[in-house]
């Protein structure tokens, strides 16, 4: 099994030859070994969106219970770990709030274990924590989850590989073309430099966009630590606007 020095060298070589401004991850990123057979080798084809591509699915109060935004109350007792809130705003590429839209999250527990049959990491399962949440954004695009800070966990990309702690976010905009899934990270994680998934975004400023900020004003006295993470989708095509340079 490859070691971290080899993976880190591969990451460094790719970054040193990358040009600034690549704001999305590379699909072809060999240090992430699982991508080798799962990335397209032909160029993406440019197309103007039409028909159903112009309309994201719509979700409403019938789809999501407000209690689903609190991941600490889903079982009989308190989950173990550091209680946190993650608050932020979902906006589109023109800075407009995405209102009433579905956000889904999932994460490991505080010991770095997912409730998933394929997670074999010998860390404890927390009977009071599923790590799954949903909410709808409010009229200004804001969302808020209450949860437990996830732990880092080992994976088999290479010898002694560990993922930085993260929360998975599934996001919709107003257009189907804005659909995305990503991961939110926590500030100051020592694993950032070592992680080929995080480092698949070659532009450092773009990578930083995945890291939440600690916000002391969001922390609650004797209760929870507050993090803030704003999310920007790609631009909408549904309303007339000036043409943007196509990167």
């Amino acid at each position, binding site marked *: 099994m490859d070691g971290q020095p080899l993976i880190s060298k591969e990451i460094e070589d790719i970054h040193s030859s990358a040009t600034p401004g*690549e*704001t*999305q*991850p*590379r*699909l072809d990123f060999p240090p*992430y070994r*699982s991508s080798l*057979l*799962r*990335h*397209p*080798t*032909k160029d*993406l*084809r*440019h*197309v*103007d*969106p039409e*028909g*159903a*591509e112009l*309309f994201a*699915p*719509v979700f409403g109060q*019938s*789809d999501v219970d407000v209690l689903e935004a609190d991941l600490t109350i889903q079982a009989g007792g308190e989950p173990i770990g550091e209680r946190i809130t993650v608050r932020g705003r979902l*906006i589109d*590429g023109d800075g407009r709030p995405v209102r009433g839209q579905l956000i*889904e999250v*999932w994460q*490991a527990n505080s010991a770095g274990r997912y*409730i*998933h049959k394929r997670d074999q990491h010998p860390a404890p399962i927390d009977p009071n924590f599923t790590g*799954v949440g*949903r909410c709808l954004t409010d009229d200004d695009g804001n969302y808020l989850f209450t949860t437990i800070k996830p732990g880092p966990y080992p994976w088999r990309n290479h010898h002694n590989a560990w993922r930085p702690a993260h929360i*998975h976010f599934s996001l919709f905009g107003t257009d189907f*073309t804005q*659909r*995305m*899934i*990503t*991961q939110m990270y926590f500030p100051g994680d020592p694993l950032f430099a070592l992680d080929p998934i995080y480092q*698949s*975004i070659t532009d450092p*400023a*773009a*990578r930083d*966009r*995945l890291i939440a900020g600690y916000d002391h004003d969001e922390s609650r006295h004797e209760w929870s630590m507050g993090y803030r993470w704003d*999310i*920007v989708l*790609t631009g*909408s*095509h549904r309303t007339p*606007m*000036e043409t*943007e340079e*196509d990167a």
Partner: protein
Amino acid sequence: MSSVMPTPGQTIGPFFHYALPFEFDRELVAREQPDAVRLHGYVLDGDGHGIQDAMIEIRQADASGHVPEVPGSLRRDGASFTGWGRSSTDPTGHYWFSTLEPGQTDPDSAPFIAVTVFARGLLNRLFTRIYLPDDEASLSIDPFLSGLDEQERQAMTAIREPDGHLRFDIRLQGPDQSVFLTYPRHAG
């Protein structure tokens, strides 16, 4: 108008199965409904092996060409057609939906189902379209399809199986890779 740098995507990873699937996620219409069509296929890697940890989402118009904007996909009421569904793949890489065949949303273009692909090992989502196989007239006038070569056109068109089902395989890599799309406001 200044635009804001979009948040980068990341892989869906291997552990989404307890979070994203939901009851009737892939049944946009009940399988028993007379006009229901089964849309199915495999998500395959560069070696032609099925990908067991992929997830497909579809978005489409109803049979009349209207794109519904109604809630209720996560808790389907059995009556509303929401035009959106989600199917994770099974251990062989197989996905399926029960849905309607979409009508034309525009008289000058062929009807299609919009698709998003997620998978472990895939660092960002991919988009493609599934065109319906039978309406030669609309397929031949569609401006986008007209710009493709024959292999690409076939790769974007579902196959009608003898029992009426629609078959559409998604190949992430290789000589017969699927045609994946990017839209004007997708940076990077």
